[in-house]
């Protein structure tokens, strides 16, 4: 469930960005890494309390995400006009990914960074125990995702995000600024990844490329859930998280990272649109 919660925070943000902007954000993992480094800076260097550290990480990644559209995607979109982008956004965000990794390397160095647990203690359940840190990951992920879904369901700007995802031209006709929604969506997606990075930092070592493997796995989760489908991404995250945890009980752990892709391939062969995707999309 811990892995599922992490994947959900990460993949739902990635899926939201794809659904609204039609952009596969290869740099998504770097927001996760930024979150990890920010929580390290907040806790270890500035001695802030853990909750403030997580908030700093989420806010920092959110602000960084806000800058991506006006600085990168927007200018390219304007230059392209009505011409199809093809794989240009993929290349653009790959460039951003490399730039952010290099920046983290330059600022923080290539050494692994260890972040102390945000909470200590173990919850005993029968003969086994679960660390409070892992429970915190699951709880915060669940709360944040519930908040995101509530925002999209009931808030004025959340409805606008959904409207743009479904029909950008019609959304404009309702007075919605596409630029505003694109900026907000990238900020939200990045913020979720940043919080994910902050929560997982005590469980993993933090290094500049820590988020990249997660990005690749999140692509598999996004495809598995159905491209652009948030509920599908959530469901797929939980399936992959639980499958990865269970499979290491039966086979060597080296196979763990391949589980997501094996499940993705099987589902794609049986149901090419993914679990909750539609047969055709815009």
């Amino acid at each position, binding site marked *: 469930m811990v892995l599922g919660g992490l994947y959900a925070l990460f993949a739902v943000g990635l899926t939201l960005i794809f659904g609204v902007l039609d952009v596969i954000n290869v740099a998504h993992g770097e927001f996760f890494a930024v979150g990890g480094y920010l929580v390290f800076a907040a806790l270890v260097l500035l001695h802030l309390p853990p909750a403030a550290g997580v908030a700093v990480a989420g806010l920092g990644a959110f602000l960084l995400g806000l800058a991506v559209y006006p600085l990168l995607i927007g200018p390219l979109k304007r230059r392209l*006009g009505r011409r199809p982008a093809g794989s240009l956004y993929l290349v653009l965000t790959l460039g951003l990914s490399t730039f952010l990794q290099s920046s983290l390397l330059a600022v923080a160095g290539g050494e692994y960074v260890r972040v102390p647990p945000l909470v200590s203690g173990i919850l005993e359940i029968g003969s086994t125990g679960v660390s409070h840190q892992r429970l915190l990951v699951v709880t915060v992920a669940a709360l944040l995702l519930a908040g995101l879904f509530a925002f999209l369901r009931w808030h004025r700007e959340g409805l*606008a995000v959904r409207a743009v995802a*479904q029909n950008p*031209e*019609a959304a404009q006709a*309702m*007075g919605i600024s596409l630029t505003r929604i694109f900026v907000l969506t990238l900020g939200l997606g990045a913020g979720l990844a940043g919080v994910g990075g902050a929560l997982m930092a005590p469980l993993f070592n933090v290094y500049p490329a820590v988020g990249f493997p997660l990005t690749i796995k999140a692509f598999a989760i996004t495809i598995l859930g159905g491209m652009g489908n948030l509920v599908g991404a959530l469901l797929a995250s939980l399936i992959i998280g639980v499958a990865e945890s269970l499979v290491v009980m039966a086979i060597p752990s080296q196979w763990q990272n391949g589980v997501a892709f094996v499940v993705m391939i099987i589902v794609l062969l049986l149901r090419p649109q993914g679990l909750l995707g539609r047969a055709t999309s815009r």
Partner: protein
Amino acid sequence: MLEVAGLRSGYGRLEILRGASLRLPAGSIVGLIGPNGAGKSTLLKTIFGYLRPFAGAITLEGRSLVGLRPDQIMQLGVGFVAQAGGLFADMTVHENLLVGGYSLGSRGELRAALEDVYARFPLFRERRQQPAASLSGGEQRALALARALVIRPRVLLLDEPSAALAPRFIEEVYETIRALNRSGIALLIVEQNVEMILSVAHRVFVLDLGRNAFDGTPAELRGSDRIRRLYLGEGSRAGIPA
């Protein structure tokens, strides 16, 4: 109220409109007709800011609309209903109307505007939690109209409101159009169904190959043998009543 003069526009380098002009006086219904590919929908999209004109002027009460985005033009009181309705299919009826009121300033204003719309379209109050995609074709077109009314527009641009509708739904949609006009809204309607548009329009423009081919009242159009023969004539696909 709304004036278009010498408009040249199109897609990329492809010029569709080659100097089209029209006038939509306050409180009137103007019909825009012509053969397929004449540039009717391109004209509406250019007025509403989806396309940037190559040349020409578009003004609303003297203010230029050229260079404004659709969301900015909408905030000036211009509504647009796309040919297929442009509903948010995965949202409920109520959510579609809420998005229609996105630009309204306060919750109170939005609530009052939604009440007005529900009063005008009681069916949607009953079906407010129903997904928009589950409505019939005619109901979807009516919902698209209702959604455009939430902001209480002064001008409505309608792109083929009767397209792909069964005859009884076309009557309903046009009854709504008449009612909207009686409430003071000016409507510019692109339409293939010539008979219907001539029954409601105060003035008609015929476009051909991106240029004005006729400008007059429905009665004048009916009296013009040349226009009827060339663009709408008897025996042709448009078939207007003489």
